[in-house]
């Protein structure tokens, strides 16, 4: 500074603060760097997205709100054989060759899933695509969804689609196989029904036509014997008696065969059944057969079980009648009916001290017409045990036997899973006769 005379007398310094400026520059630099970073990140992301779009198997096509394609990935190109074309939505059907699943009706443009997506709809449809760029047509399933900006404004649509030609072929194959199977089942059922019908007709005619002549043979033999006995030699009478016996035996045979056939077609009627009551009934029914003999019955406590009472009665009737028959040579016949548990199942046993049989022939025991004794020793038709087996099998159970020649036989049977025992206190009082002789 100078004074009035012009001589220096001091100085003036001017100070300017540039801190703000420096800060602003730094911020700018930082922003520029961030921008660069985010641009790089965006590029990376875009690249990643691009490779994702390139690698997925589904075709992806997006269009803006005017219908201009903005994305068309390689899979889309591969599936429909063409890329993005600059054609308006109403010409997509023609241009890309899209049809309804009937493969001939052009796909209605307004129903195109991409167009519907642009209009804000989400939908899934099947269509058939065939055009000059493709070797063969393909079926595709496409799902369209709208594209929206953050504020919710419509920005176009995207459609994802895949080739379902193979799936459709598989489905068609499965359907065809199913139909064939169905047809085979129908045919087989018809054959079975026919066979069943034939069997029924056969049973009927056996029942009707075979019994009649037997009745005539037996009837007229009897009339001869009664009305002409005086003019006949005793030997002639004896022969007539044998004719009549034969007719009666064959009548029995026919009736038992019919019974066996009936068991086959009979529909089971499951009821909770007290087996002790069944045994009691059968024992009293068989009483006439034990006349003049000493038979000791030992009946244990048996369960109440779900089974068909009529058929189970038949099982006991056949088994107990056999026991009575084959103990005939014994002074004291002992017939025991007992039960035990095996693998959670009730096994019923019918044991006798009769003549038994050789276990070598056990396989023949349950066959129709199979007999292990001569007719002169023990009468029988050879159908009883076959009937027992059929009834037990019908209940889902098993039947088997153990025996020793001259020591007696034991027959065992179970009644299968459906015939679960029913625990009831009611059966107990009845079963108090356990081990008692009746």
């Amino acid at each position, binding site marked *: 500074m100078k004074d009035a005379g012009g001589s220096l007398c001091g100085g003036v310094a001017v100070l300017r603060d540039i801190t703000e400026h420096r800060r602003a520059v730094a911020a700018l630099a930082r922003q520029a760097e961030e921008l660069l970073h985010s641009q790089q990140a965006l590029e990376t992301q875009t690249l990643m997205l691009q490779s994702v779009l390139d690698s997925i198997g589904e075709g992806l096509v997006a269009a803006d709100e005017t219908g201009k394609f903005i994305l068309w990935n390689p899979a889309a190109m591969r599936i429909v054989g063409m890329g993005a074309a600059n054609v308006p939505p109403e010409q997509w059907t023609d241009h890309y060759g899209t049809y309804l699943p009937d493969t001939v009706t052009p796909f209605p443009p307004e129903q195109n899933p991409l167009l519907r997506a642009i209009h804000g709809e989400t939908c899934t449809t099947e269509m058939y695509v065939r055009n000059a760029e493709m070797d063969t047509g393909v079926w595709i399933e496409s799902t369209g969804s709208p594209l929206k900006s953050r504020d919710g404004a419509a920005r176009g649509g995207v459609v994802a689609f895949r080739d379902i030609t193979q799936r459709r072929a598989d489905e068609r194959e499965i359907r065809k196989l199913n139909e064939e199977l169905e047809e085979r089942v129908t045919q087989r059922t018809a054959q079975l029904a026919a066979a069943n019908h034939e069997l029924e007709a056969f049973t009927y005619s056996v*029942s009707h036509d075979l019994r009649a002549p037997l009745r005539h043979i037996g009837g007229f033999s009897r009339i001869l014997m009664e009305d002409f006995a005086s003019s006949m030699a005793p030997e002639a009478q004896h022969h007539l008696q044998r004719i009549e016996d034969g007719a009666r035996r064959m009548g029995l045979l026919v009736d038992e065969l019919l019974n066996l056939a009936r068991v086959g077609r009979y529909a089971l009627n499951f009821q909770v059944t007290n087996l002790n009551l069944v045994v009691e009934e059968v024992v009293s029914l068989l009483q006439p057969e034990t006349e003049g003999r000493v038979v000791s019955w030992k009946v244990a406590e048996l369960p109440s079980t779900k089974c068909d009472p009529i058929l189970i009665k038949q099982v006991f009737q056949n088994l107990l009648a056999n026991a009575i028959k084959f103990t005939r040579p014994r002074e004291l016949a002992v017939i025991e009916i007992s039960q035990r548990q095996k693998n959670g199942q009730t096994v019923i046993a019918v044991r006798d001290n009769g003549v038994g049989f050789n276990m070598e022939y056990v396989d023949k025991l349950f066959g129709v017409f199979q007999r292990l004794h001569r007719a002169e020793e023990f009468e029988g038709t050879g159908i009883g045990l076959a009937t027992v087996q059929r009834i037990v099998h019908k209940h889902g159970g098993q039947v088997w036997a153990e025996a020793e020649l001259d020591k007696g036989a034991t027959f065992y049977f179970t009644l299968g899973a459906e015939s679960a025992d029913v625990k009831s206190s009611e059966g107990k009082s009845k079963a108090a006769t356990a081990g008692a002789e009746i």
Partner: protein
Amino acid sequence: MNPNEVDILLVDDSQDDIDLTLHALRAENLANSIFVARDGEEALDFLFCSGAHAQRSFDSPPKLVLLDLKLPKVDGMQVLKRVKGDARTKIIPVVLMTSSKEEQDLVIGYNLGANSYIQKPVDFDEFRKAVKLLGLYWLVVNQPPLATGKLKAAKQGQ
């Protein structure tokens, strides 16, 4: 035999069965007035007083019809259906006598209005017993219904 005084109409196509049935009925003195029809058509003519039996009257129905099921021309079930489906004949007792023990025959027979169902036993003693019981029951024990004609007469008499 007066065609209007028949106790039993026996319908059977088998001469053997007819002979055995008659033999059994004779033993019980029940065979005095029996008419035998050999097929369903003849049975219907007899029961409906038509054809060869046009001279017969609805007022004198048989007291009992023994009907076999398996018959030529018109089978037993059809005969039964006609008889039980007609007001003039439905009161006549009809006993089905057949060889068959088929449940379906039993069910159909009873549904059509059969009064009884007998399976002809193979054993002649049993057969005879069945025929005897049948004859005695329907001809002797049972009080037969009044025939339609007699019924009318009874009503008019009141």
